[in-house]
């Protein structure tokens, strides 16, 4: 489900602070900031659309009413997926899973910090 056209502009335009659930805390701007300064972070709860463990990318669906948007995230060092049952790996996430993601907003995009697999809200749409 990962599309190869590299289209990121609409998502960059998207104002995460309003559109996505969760608080955004801006890093204090400082001329003396070092590369280790914490990235501005945000959290969102959304449904997994796709996971590419090899490319280390994750796409989730969220939105406002009928206006849906895909948020693309990546990870550098594989975060542990927190779940009730077990600490699963990212590759065990699958489309349709409900997740809460904390991520940093880096110049190269959204970088996953922590991810939590939430209880399934219900059976899949085919009954």
């Amino acid at each position, binding site marked *: 489900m990962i599309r190869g056209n590299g289209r990121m502009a609409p998502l960059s335009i998207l104002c995460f602070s*309003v559109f996505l659930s969760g608080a955004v805390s801006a890093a204090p701007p400082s001329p003396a900031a070092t590369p280790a300064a914490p990235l501005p972070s945000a959290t969102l709860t959304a449904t997994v659309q796709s996971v590419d463990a090899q490319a280390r990318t994750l796409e989730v669906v*969220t939105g*406002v009413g009928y206006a849906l948007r895909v948020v693309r995230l990546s990870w550098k060092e594989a975060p542990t997926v927190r779940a009730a049952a077990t600490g699963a790996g990212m590759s065990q996430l699958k489309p349709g899973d409900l997740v809460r993601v904390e991520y940093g907003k880096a110049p190269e995009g959204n970088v996953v910090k922590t991810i939590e697999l939430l209880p399934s809200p*219900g059976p899949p749409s085919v009954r």
Partner: protein
Amino acid sequence: MRPVLLSLAIATILVAAACAKPPAPGEPLAGLDAAQRDQFERGKVIFNRVFEPETGLGPLFNAKSCGECHEKPVAGGVGDEVEVHATALLPNGVCDPLADLGGFVYQQHVTPALKNALGIDKEPVPAKATAQGRRSSPDVLGFGLLDAVPDSEILAYADPDDRNHDGISGRPNRFFDGRLGRFGRKALVPTLAEFNEGAFPVEIGITVPAVPSEETVAGQPIPAGVDPVPDPELDAQSVALVNAFVRFLAPPAPPKLKGASRRGPELFEKTGCAACHVPRLKTGDSDVKALAHREVAAYTDLLLHDMGPTLADICLGLASPSEFRTEPLMGLRFSEKFLHDGRAASIEEAIRLHGGEAVSARDRFDSLPAAEREALLAFLKQL
């Protein structure tokens, strides 16, 4: 004040309250304060505002104003517009809302600038879609009361495994963040405000602070220069006023049952219609006194039910192609076409198209003596 005079005054107030005429269609709820009525009136103006490309319309759109689709007999009523939705049901049973391919609403109109740029008359449905559905425009009268019904009230009617063996197994839909949904024909959207805010970009192509980017054309960005109006194209205050207008619209007045239709409520129960079309829901706490702890004659449980293969179209969220939210019957008196896609020309035809969990109720309706069937239909036409 003497006790006699006091009693007289109280009695007069009670009689006046009892005799107060319920709001007419399109009027605000009774009991709003002056500030809320002011918001209602100002919001109504924006609800009816006709947008043009130079004020932000499009580039993709289904209508030029909210009032274009919700217009009969008053602003907030029904419309004759029918839009197109599409999604993909994946082999693993998960529903893909095609969020990266323009979303599941495929706009039926484009601005001249987009037509010049891409040569299209409407948004193309991507090949990945496995199903399309048509959606008529319902009335939204009284929807502020539906918004104020607590989740717990809705969940109390859910019986996903049909543990009571009545053949009815309603279950809630969930939005993509897991919250319980209730608005839209598949009960996807959790709140009225979100439904309204999402409708601006999706239906009119008007960006708002909560959704400050335009819809894509089946996944492709809008070509440069096609939509020069800065985003957001509508400010937060205007959106809030429209929300107030829709939220404060009074529900249709209770029907004045006469003649045979007086048996309607009893027959509605007897046939089993009321198992899903729950006659009354109760609202919970609200910051608006006129919405708090009220009974609303909604005739819905706001849950998903299997309606059978004849009506099945798209999946959405947790809803399978054949699952639809029980349509609220309040305001049925204003409808000229029926069911989610307007395929039924009469209430009777709509009932006969009910399948799945509704088969028993449909069959009981069919087996009613003609006089009782007519009485039930007469009642329904007054809701």
